[in-house]
């Protein structure tokens, strides 16, 4: 052996390190951005950050290529060719803003509802909502309606918090973890970190998913359930647990409405509502006296078994109603096995494992705490069973009730907010009552009468006009879907096109690719966006889009407001919005321009939030102009620091006042610097004694008030039985003055059931199983974020094309071979796509990766890019309405409770077909011109230099 080469194993890593927040998805990890020669050279996770503690996913690490993407917009654009052509001219910011004002100002003065402002998965919803409220239009929402509102709303209505990013399993203590219908989730890195911790500790993971990939691949046990049947499976588990008495009675009595007495008088307008005292406090039967007493009265021993009879009416405890429902043989494992595709034995074994782990492996922590009634508990007792779920159970038309069923199961096991169970992250828990109600009153020249979105507690909270019609363009909070807490973005374009409930003038979209992957029936949506009336005018007269890249949606805009990339602007990840807190800490964070937005030779880009503030000033919106008529805020950074939602409460909670106040305090001009010094985030630990039992823990309630999460303590009990839902049923039965239209009565009666139940997904019942025998699903690839990952030179090499995965049974039946193509037909259309075999897949299910297919010419990709040829969307097969049922009505393909888009109800049939000559999937949307040209051919850059 000769001499080894010498080289420097200790080279300088970079010139400078700047810490900010990732934006390659909504998980919002902390990142260290390394700079060399003033250019981004490397991105890694921030070890101190509460969300990711140093790790970073593929998208996060590839952020550098997103930042350098050739598809970045460079200047405001005005459309010159037909909508969709991609033909634009660059204009100045002044022209762009004046154009927007010219369109919007008259609307505000006459009919503010004619502006429809909808935003995608942006992380400034408290700001955009505030802007829309100031404008006065009721037509504002973010993407939750087509995303996962079932999960969020079912969580809030049931337990005052949800999975999603609002809570997490007690990763350090749980021993049995079940994960339903999750491929990736918003809590992307934390789930992976958590699973890693479970594996390290040898805890058991059960994955319930028709597809065994990703998280389900590493699960110790895979339950390859038939799509749409989780509710049945869960209720069968409930059936078994109740039958065996394996429920936590103590927990139910203390923390839930299980003992609340329900009015059993079928003729009464209060039928099904809680028996209450004169103060409105729900009553329970005291076991000592047999008398109804307020549930929160000191010393009361609530009964769960027996009711009371008052004036001839029997009032029965909730748990009694539950026993009647769930002990029914209809929910026995044998009864559901075939439908769920899970053997009855297996269901029973899982129920037994839940019971064993919850009750035999009880966790006891020596940590005294005091509940809100002042009672001291010496120990914290926990049941180490936890659950997580996402769109797999929520993106179905029975999703709300299914999510409720899962929460009910957690609660019956006593495993919410206890050691080893599921834990909320501040600002949750927060019961429905603590959220606002939706507001919808549009008045010329006036702001809206209150926040747009909220949690209705009964028919009186619906967003209806005087004559009972939907007040919002998306028909959210109408009788069709009363609890649509996140709005219904997927209905906006089709309703606006139909002029139902009314036409709009300007459609203002921010960060949503509505002309492509976030629409149902993409080709039809494109037609709606381009459609003209008899005069040749567009049916939707104006479309303004804010995007950072040359997306498919940009091509359909009349005016494009180019945003910066995430490394070039201020952003605020606020506790007023979607939290990044941990179960034992409140946290918020920001983004700041770690690199200046430069687009040499072009008018340049501006952070959208700053642009909105500028527009707000030009439109004279309240809160955005000061007394002299000057802009109230210089830009978004200024807003982040100086805006106050309530006195002392602003977008950022850390370092308020003189820098020593947290949570509450006067604005601090140096606040942003303090955040940057701290790595871009702020974190406040919850005191130890307050870390569990949060909804009932006096120490937590006090801490939350101090931190500004609540204005006063608000302990509450979990709603096994949902009284707000029962109020809608009562309306459907003819009670109350706000009455649903007749055609919706039966459906409301059925689906607004106050106790979780299962019904078959709507599309399944609307079509014949013989015609459409298969379920078709999508999954998110972990290394791709919706449509916008394909412009990333690194990520597109990992997921550049998406075959349709077909289970063995179907593969053999159709004689498929490698390299084959298939025609996939749904009740709404057909696509022609490449297929591939997957064995570890539910036998009645086909699936593909989500949003890999691209329109030719978009994203600065070559028109021959595989994403644009072979890649495809399932969206062409999905309709926002169900197939006609012959009743003359078109019912929505949504959850009837929340309006959640039922993406995963899709039914299809598959046929083998000859591969297209051009090897391109069908339908092929014609190419657009690229407003930003094409990317360079080859890349090799070092140290940030492209």
């Amino acid at each position, binding site marked *: 052996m000769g001499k080894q080469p010498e080289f420097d194993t200790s080279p300088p890593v970079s010139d400078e390190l700047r810490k900010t927040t990732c934006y390659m998805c909504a998980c919002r990890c902390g990142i260290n951005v390394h700079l060399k020669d003033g250019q981004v050279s490397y991105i890694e996770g921030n070890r101190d950050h509460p969300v990711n503690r140093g790790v970073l996913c593929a998208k996060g690490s590839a952020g550098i290529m997103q930042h350098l993407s050739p598809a970045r917009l460079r200047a405001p654009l005005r459309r010159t060719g037909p909508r969709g052509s991609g033909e634009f001219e660059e204009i100045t910011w002044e022209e762009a803003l004046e154009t927007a004002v010219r369109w919007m100002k008259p609307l505000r003065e006459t009919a503010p509802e004619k502006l429809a402002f909808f935003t995608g998965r942006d992380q400034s919803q408290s700001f955009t909502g505030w802007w829309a409220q100031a404008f006065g239009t009721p037509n504002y929402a973010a993407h939750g309606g087509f995303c996962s509102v079932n999960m969020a709303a079912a969580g809030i209505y049931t337990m005052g918090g949800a999975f999603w990013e609002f809570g997490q399993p007690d990763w350090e203590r749980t021993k049995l973890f079940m994960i339903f219908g999750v491929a990736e989730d918003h809590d992307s890195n934390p789930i992976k970190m958590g699973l890693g911790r479970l594996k390290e500790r040898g805890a058991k993971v059960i994955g319930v998913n028709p597809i065994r990939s990703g998280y389900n691949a590493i699960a110790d046990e895979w339950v390859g359930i038939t799509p749409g049947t989780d509710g049945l499976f869960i209720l069968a588990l409930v059936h078994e647990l109740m039958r065996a008495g394996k429920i936590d009675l103590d927990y139910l009595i203390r923390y839930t409405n299980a003992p609340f007495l329900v009015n059993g008088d079928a003729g009464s307008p209060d039928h099904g509502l809680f028996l209450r005292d004169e103060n409105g406090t729900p009553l329970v039967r005291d076991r000592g006296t047999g008398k109804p007493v307020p549930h929160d009265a000191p010393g009361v021993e609530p009964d769960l078994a027996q009711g009371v009879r008052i004036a001839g009416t029997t009032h029965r405890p909730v748990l009694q109603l539950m026993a009647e429902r769930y002990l029914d043989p209809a929910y026995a494992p044998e009864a559901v096995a075939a439908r769920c595709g899970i053997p009855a034995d297996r269901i029973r074994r899982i129920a037994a494992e839940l019971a064993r782990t919850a009750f035999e492996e009880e966790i006891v922590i020596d940590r005294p705490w005091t509940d809100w009634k002042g009672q001291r508990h010496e120990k914290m007792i926990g049941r180490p069973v936890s659950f997580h779920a996402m769109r797999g159970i929520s993106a179905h038309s029975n999703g709300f009730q299914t999510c409720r069923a899962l929460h009910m199961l957690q609660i019956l096991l006593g495993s919410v907010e206890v050691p080893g169970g599921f834990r909320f992250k501040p600002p949750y828990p927060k019961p429905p009552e603590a959220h606002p109600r939706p507001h919808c009153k549009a008045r010329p020249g006036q702001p809206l009468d209150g926040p747009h979105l909220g949690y209705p507690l009964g028919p009186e909270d619906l967003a209806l006009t005087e004559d009972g019609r939907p007040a919002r363009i998306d028909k959210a909070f109408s009788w069709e879907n009363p609890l649509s807490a996140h709005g219904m973005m997927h209905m906006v374009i089709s309703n606006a096109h139909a002029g139902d409930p009314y036409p709009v003038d300007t459609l203002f979209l921010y960060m949503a690719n509505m002309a492509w992957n976030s629409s149902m029936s993409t080709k039809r949506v494109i037609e709606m966006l381009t459609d003209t009336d008899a005069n040749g005018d567009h049916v939707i007269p104006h479309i303004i889009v804010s995007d950072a890249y040359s997306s498919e949606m940009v091509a359909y805009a009349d005016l494009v407001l180019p945003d910066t990339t995430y490394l070039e602007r201020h952003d605020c990840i606020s506790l007023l919005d979607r939290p990044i807190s941990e179960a034992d800490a409140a946290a918020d964070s920001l983004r700041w321009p770690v690199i200046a937005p430069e687009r040499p030779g072009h008018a340049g880009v501006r952070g959208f939030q700053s642009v909105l503030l500028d527009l707000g000033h030009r439109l004279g919106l309240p809160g955005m102009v000061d007394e002299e008529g000057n802009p109230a805020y210089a830009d978004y950074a200024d807003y982040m620091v100086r805006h106050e939602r309530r006195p002392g409460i602003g977008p950022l909670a850390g370092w308020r006042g003189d820098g020593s106040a947290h949570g509450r305090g006067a604005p601090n001009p140096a606040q942003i610097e303090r955040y940057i010094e701290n790595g871009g985030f702020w974190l406040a630990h919850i005191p130890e004694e307050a870390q569990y039992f949060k909804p009932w823990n006096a120490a937590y309630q006090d801490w939350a008030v101090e931190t500004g999460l609540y204005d006063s303590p608000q302990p509450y009990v979990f709603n096994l039985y949902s009284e707000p839902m029962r109020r809608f049923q009562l309306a459907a039965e003819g009670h109350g003055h706000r009455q649903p239209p007749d055609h919706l009565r039966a459906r409301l009666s059925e689906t607004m059931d106050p106790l979780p139940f299962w019904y078959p997904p709507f599309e399944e019942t609307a079509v014949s199983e013989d015609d459409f025998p298969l379920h078709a699903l999508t999954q998110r690839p972990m290394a791709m974020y919706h449509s916008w990952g394909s412009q990333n030179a690194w990520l597109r090499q*990992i997921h550049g*094309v998406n075959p349709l995965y077909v289970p063995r049974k179907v593969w053999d039946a159709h004689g498929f071979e490698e390299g084959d193509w298939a025609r996939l037909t749904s009740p709404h259309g057909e696509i022609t796509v490449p297929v591939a075999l997957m064995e570890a897949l539910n036998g009645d299910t086909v699936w593909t990766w989500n949003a890999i297919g691209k329109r030719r010419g978009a994203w600065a990709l070559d028109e021959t890019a595989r994403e644009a040829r072979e890649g495809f969307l399932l969206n062409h097969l999905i309709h926002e309405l169900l197939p006609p049922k012959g009743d003359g009505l078109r019912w929505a393909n949504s959850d009837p409770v929340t309006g959640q888009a039922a993406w995963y109800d899709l039914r299809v049939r598959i046929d083998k077909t000859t591969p297209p000559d051009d090897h391109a999937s069908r339908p092929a949307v014609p190419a657009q011109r690229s407003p930003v040209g094409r990317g360079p051919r080859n890349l090799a850059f070092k140290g940030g230099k492209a």
Partner: protein
Amino acid sequence: MHPAPSIIVFTAISGLGFGLLAWLGVGVPDVTGWSAFAFFFIAYALAAGGLMASAFHLGHPERAFKAFSQWRSSWLSREAVLSVATLLAFGPYALALWLFETRLGLLGAVGSLLALATVFSTSMIYASLRAVPRWNHWLVPTLFLLYAISGGALLSGEIYAAALLFLVLAGAQLLYWRTGDKLFHAAGSTAETATGLGFMGKVRQLEPPHTGPNYLLKEMVFVVGRRRAERLRLIALLSGAILPALVLSIVPAGHLAAAVAVLLHVIGLLAARWLFFAEAEHVVGLYYGRR
């Protein structure tokens, strides 16, 4: 393996050249003056030309000189050293024959040995690779040497020796194909050993790591259709060995017959070499579900 023209040409042509040199070194044919010049010109052109072709396969041909350094461990380096040594050794030998009509017998013998050693090293570049089981066999050097010696015999005009050698070559080639077809299996590498997952069942690729192409797939995962392989094997065998042997033994000797035989042999040789690469399965294919 990807049948890169540069490598096929390199091994085939340089093999012929070194084969011819091996014969010339032992005085077959016993030529001097301008006819010696002609023979050596052909031999050098083939040998050196082949080596040049191999440079096209290099990412950095300008650094090719570095390849001489690792003769202690690397067959490629040995091949480089030996080929240059061979060409150098034959320099004075050829000059002496051409200009002085003198045969430096010992130098010639050494040169012949070097030439054969060169061909042997070339073959060992491949035969030493365990990752390509079809190559990892003593028949590979045997075959390379046979191709070199028989082709060399043909070029040196040793008609009967050539005819005989071609028959041996045909046999060896057939034997190699028959043996080679079993080697991958015999090596014992499977998707199960590659992944260690055999204990969980049969292993199949679900998704490739990247949907985009990569160097490994282009370089090492080449799949020839069976029909095509069979056709080419026939061509290689007939054209490379059997037909030249027939031509040499039946057709009266002469320039035309020799030219036809050479042409046939070269075609067959190229076909055989193309197959040598194209049919060779690299175990990395197991990771890509391509075996």
